[in-house]
């Protein structure tokens, strides 16, 4: 086990290194330059700016410099937000995205599992259809439509919740709902499938045959076992939901990190692009890692030892 974790850790470092390299290359192929302003800058001024940020050096030299700084944990200064370091932007903004993401995820998890269980228990009957349709509607409407509609009708027309900002609990309700809908559907369907799978197992049939009440069968044997595969997709979902916050943050003017995902690329803010890519990669890699380990712990049938052929 220890050896496995060590090896996985090394792999993760390697993964991050490759991603950093690929992003660095792609980013530098991208058209545009960070200091191009609305008013054209005289040539000599631009040269000065580029020299200041080391952009006058050839790409391989810049790569080496970046990697060296990265090893020291220095992500550099943003090229657009002149006085902010990439590290501080991430540190300040990510907690808000994370909070939004977790709220959305909890909502999706609770509602999704509920719908999934209802559907599975009533397999093939009306309630199966009803809960699946509710779930699927969530995944059927793009979040910018849901967000825009909710903002106007619930915020402006009904005045139930604030329209923009991120200050009180009230501010968080619509954005979390809009962001969570997609995940809700994934959860619900995953739970349904997994639950159906479990309910068809022999031990469930045995339990039924023993005369255990239906509710006990579902609770004690069904849900507990069915929830396992759902837990395993939580990793990618957490990462997905935190990266998916762009639209919701934009509509509701929430000062999170998601907005930078698009603006950094649009503004050729090289250091910020690199910082964000690495940061989100780190989250993804860590999540996958944790899930694998958890899976091993939860399910004794899986051993975390290297297979020898």
């Amino acid at each position, binding site marked *: 086990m220890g050896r496995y974790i060590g090896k996985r850790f090394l792999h993760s470092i390697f993964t991050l290194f490759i991603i950093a390299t690929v992003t660095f290359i792609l980013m530098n192929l991208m058209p545009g330059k960070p200091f191009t302003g609305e008013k054209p800058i005289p040539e000599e001024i631009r040269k000065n700016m580029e020299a200041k940020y080391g952009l006058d050096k050839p790409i391989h030299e810049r790569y080496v410099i970046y990697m060296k700084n990265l090893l020291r944990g220095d992500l550099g200064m943003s090229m657009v937000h002149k006085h902010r370091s990439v590290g501080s932007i991430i540190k300040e903004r990510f907690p808000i995205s994370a909070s939004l993401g977790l709220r959305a995820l909890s909502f999706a998890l609770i509602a999704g599992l509920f719908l999934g269980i209802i559907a599975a228990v009533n397999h093939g009957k009306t309630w199966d259809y009803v809960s699946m349709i509710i779930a699927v509607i969530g995944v059927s409407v793009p979040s910018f*439509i849901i967000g825009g509609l909710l903002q106007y009708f619930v915020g402006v027309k009904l005045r139930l919740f604030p329209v923009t900002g991120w200050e009180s609990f009230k501010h968080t309700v619509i954005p979390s709902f809009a962001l969570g809908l997609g995940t809700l559907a994934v959860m619900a369907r995953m739970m349904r499938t997994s639950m159906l799978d479990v309910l068809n197992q022999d031990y469930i049939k045995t339990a039924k045959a023993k005369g255990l009440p239906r509710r006990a069968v579902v609770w004690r044997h069904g849900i507990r076992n069915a929830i396992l595969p759902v837990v395993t997709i939580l990793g990618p979902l957490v990462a997905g939901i935190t990266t998916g916050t762009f639209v919701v943050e934009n509509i509701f003017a929430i000062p999170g990190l998601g907005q930078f995902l698009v603006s950094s690329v*649009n503004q050729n803010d090289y250091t910020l692009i690199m910082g964000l890519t690495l940061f989100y990669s780190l989250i993804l890699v860590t999540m996958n890692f944790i899930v694998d380990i958890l899976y091993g712990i939860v399910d004794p049938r899986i051993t975390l030892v290297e297979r020898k052929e």
Partner: protein
Amino acid sequence: MSAIELEKFKPIGMDIEDSERITRPSLTYWQDAWRRLKMNKLAMVSLYVLIGIVIMAIIGPYLRPYTFDEQDYMEIFSPPSKDHWFGTDDLGRDLFVRVWMGARVSLRIGFFAALIDIVVGMIYGGISGYFGGRTDDIMMRIVDILYGIPYMIIVILLMILMEPGELTLIIAMSITGWVGTARLVRGQVLQLKNQEFVLAAKTLGASPWRIITKHMFPNILGIMIVQMTMDIPGAIFSEAFLSYIGLGIKLPNASWGSLASDGIKQVVERPWMLIFPAVMISLTMLSFNILGDGLRDALDPKLRN
């Protein structure tokens, strides 16, 4: 213990023929799946809805005397009427024609992105799972790396790097999209490769290519079809998202995503600009998802009854 009378029992004899008779009608896997799918009314409705949308995508633009890019400044923001069934947009273009032209673009993107995902995923996952060992290790390491890439940043980067257009969209979306499929296929292949029929084929000297294509793929085809019905709406959705952030197809072409993101800005005064494309997206998503669920149930032999 003598309450049972003897005459209540009589020998029925033993008919060899009879014992071999199959009581259930003989059905192939596909026939059986189809039979079960047919019983799922919702899935069937979805199937017909999708066929309807595809037919409209083909003939829709020819039903009206407008082209998708014909501007009419006297007709800007006209509500639905008998001249413009779905109304007009901010440049006075007919939305009925644009919605169905958009359907072609969106469906095409969805279909091809999903197709690439499936094909690449199946080949990659198949090879990795079948050969195992070192090959598997290296191939899965690559998959791990791709899994760690924040999808959105890369897609946006690629969209900016390449010429805007449908092909770019499809490539950008497939570049990491196949990874999930590859993992799924690998898992299935790992399970299958130790089963008797595969071992038998191996023993008889079948080539790996033959084993993978003839013995393994047919067994995972069902899962792949389900996967595809999930991938198509996923790609349509991604396209809508990219349209929202300003990256998408080449103008003045339309896609459902670009129409909907134009529409959401006008929702208060010109709701028709949002309603039609949004309903199309949702209907397609809904149908593919329900059909996918139905197919999964139908193709799963364990649920056979």
